[in-house]
């Protein structure tokens, strides 16, 4: 046997054994999950709302009472008057005046009487390991996230949860799917395959895994290969030609496994798109309510972001038809990079976010999905406390929103920092607060609820043990009931 033939056969053997190993591994995982028996028949969805650009969340969650003067001094001309803040009952904090609906869901009032659906996380950010003090940051004695304060790097780090950087990019949602999809979405049998990660905002690192990817949809549903969908004879003919073009050369001409696989994936995505669209267009009823009617009547703001939330509701509502016990959704709301005119732009955008989250949660409540869905926010970074005259600049830690039936609403979790510029929690340059709560802790709590086992948590969140023992009986943050 010559060297080339050996290498060729060895490669094929490797592919074959990988497949067998994967199957065995998946069976093992399935047994492991079944043995734990904690997942039951509840369908669950994690919805990530990414606030691209770096939302100034120290003007979203604001200390009141004794803490207000510290805030007002730090923010100077950008400070929100205390009297205008939306009260968060039982806390020493208020929300931005634009967030009346979020306050309603936090307090359990209005349409949410008796149902506290929102909690806030204070001072959370990307970390490799805990930062014990400002001094530790300044003298470089702790490992720090790579390239802090820049948009693309910090977006990537929030979505990968590996702030030291990765050779091959994968997101924590994607890695969770690598583990969960085959073990918990067990209704998918007989060649039926529907991915569990859906993005309404194009490709994102968040949902890319080693074996699982993301299924990108639009506000109108699946992206059609033909450019449009319909039942007309001409469109069907067009579709048929495309399918033949993709499939026939594969079988007839290509012996290369990867070419064939690529072609099959392409053909499968067309089939999946059709399957998805069929259900998305006619989602039927849930809890006695017509899904399309509920979505159409919900008070979504008149803004392009609402199309993403509407599509998310419908994609969650058809999870049974898609044979999904678990799914993730990715929504991106960009435009938060407010170096100028922060007060005006931030207020109007927070009002849109407030209205969209409220309408989204109302839909879930009406359709009986509230206890199965957790919506959470993330953003590139928090912003400097000090005004640059008209806005704020790139910083690090911020505050985030968690919403849903499983959330222990009405709480502020995490440790709200000192807002004194150049104080103990500011690493410099005008109020860059360092995080005391890591994004890993935040995500770990969501993933525990979602069904990632303690044994698999390191695979999804490689740095988690620097902050929390995945085998602990208590949650890492405590925002879930």
């Amino acid at each position, binding site marked *: 046997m010559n060297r080339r033939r050996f290498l060729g056969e060895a490669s094929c053997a490797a592919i074959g054994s990988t497949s067998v190993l994967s199957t065995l591994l998946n069976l093992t995982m399935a047994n492991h999950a079944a043995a734990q028996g904690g997942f039951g028949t509840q369908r669950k969805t994690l919805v990530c709302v990414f606030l691209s650009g770096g939302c100034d969340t120290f003007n979203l969650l604001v200390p009141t009472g004794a803490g207000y003067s510290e805030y007002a001094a730090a923010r100077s001309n950008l400070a929100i008057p205390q009297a205008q803040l939306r009260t968060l009952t039982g806390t020493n904090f208020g929300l931005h005046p634009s967030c009346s609906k979020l306050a309603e869901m936090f307090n359990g009032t209005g349409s949410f009487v008796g149902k506290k659906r929102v909690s806030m996380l204070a001072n959370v950010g990307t970390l490799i390991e805990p930062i014990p003090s400002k001094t530790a940051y300044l003298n470089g004695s702790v490992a720090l996230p790579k390239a802090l*304060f*820049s948009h693309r790097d910090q977006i990537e780090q929030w979505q990968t949860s590996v702030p030291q950087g990765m050779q091959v990019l994968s997101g924590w949602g994607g890695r969770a799917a690598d583990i969960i999809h085959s073990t918990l979405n067990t209704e998918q049998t007989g060649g039926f395959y529907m991915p569990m990660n859906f993005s309404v905002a194009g490709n994102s690192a968040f949902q890319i895994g080693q074996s699982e990817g993301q299924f990108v949809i639009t506000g109108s549903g699946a992206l059609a290969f033909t450019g449009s969908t319909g039942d007309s004879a001409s469109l069907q003919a067009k579709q048929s030609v495309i399918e033949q073009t993709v499939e026939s050369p594969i079988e007839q001409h290509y012996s290369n496994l990867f070419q064939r696989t690529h072609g099959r994936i392409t053909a499968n995505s067309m089939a999946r798109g059709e399957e998805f669209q069929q259900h998305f267009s006619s989602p039927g009823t849930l809890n006695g309510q017509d899904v399309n009617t509920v979505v159409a009547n919900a008070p979504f703001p008149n803004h392009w972001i609402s199309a993403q939330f509407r599509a998310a509701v419908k994609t969650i509502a058809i999870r049974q038809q898609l044979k999904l016990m678990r799914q993730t959704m990715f929504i991106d709301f960009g435009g938060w990079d407010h170096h100028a005119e922060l007060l005006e732009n931030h207020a109007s955008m927070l009002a849109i976010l407030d209205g969209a989250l409220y309408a989204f949660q109302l839909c879930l409540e009406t359709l009986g999905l509230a206890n199965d869905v957790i919506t959470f926010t993330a953003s590139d970074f928090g912003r400097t406390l000090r005004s640059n005259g008209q806005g704020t600049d790139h910083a690090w830690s911020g505050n985030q929103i968690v919403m849903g039936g499983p959330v222990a609403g009405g709480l502020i979790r995490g440790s709200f920092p000192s807002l004194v510029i150049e104080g103990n929690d500011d690493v410099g340059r005008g109020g860059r607060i360092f995080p005391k709560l890591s994004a890993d802790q935040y995500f770990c709590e969501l993933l525990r609820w979602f069904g990632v086992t303690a044994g698999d948590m390191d695979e999804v969140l490689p740095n988690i043990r620097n902050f929390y023992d995945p085998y602990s009986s208590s949650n890492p943050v405590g925002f879930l009931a």
Partner: protein
Amino acid sequence: MKINRRLFVLGLILALASLVPLAWMFLIVTSKGPPSPREASREPAIPDGPPIPTSHIPTASERLLEGYADPSTPPIEDLKKVQRVVAGYFSVVKDASRFPIGGNADLAAALRGENPNRETYLPEGHPVFSKDGLLIDRWGSPLVVHPEAWTQLELRSAGPDKIAYTSDDLVMKPSGK
């Protein structure tokens, strides 16, 4: 004995090799010669900062910034010059992400020597710096240094009205456009 001789020769070679980059840098600097009479007589457009001593040997970054804020050149040229300095900085400082640049103050400090190499790219008092150490445009306003990614900085001058994010701003994208 034979081993000692070999070690001595090896040490000599290493010592000579380590001197090569220094000699090369020295040659580059000296080959440039003194600034041209036109350059030497040019009044700095930005009055801030003390004059650089005449005995000072300009760094490569200073050379890239020659003619900065010259009223006879288009203002966008100033941003192009700064961008070239930034490109040079990131090409030389390989692990610059350890000293992250989130804005003007970070970049200014990095160019003054707060970087992993502890290398001075622009000396204190260079006319591109304001009295409080920020990079400024020809109208004296701090440049807006906006990191899209850690090596990709958008540069913005507030323009003649000295107010950033208005229609007379000058912007240089990381792509150079």
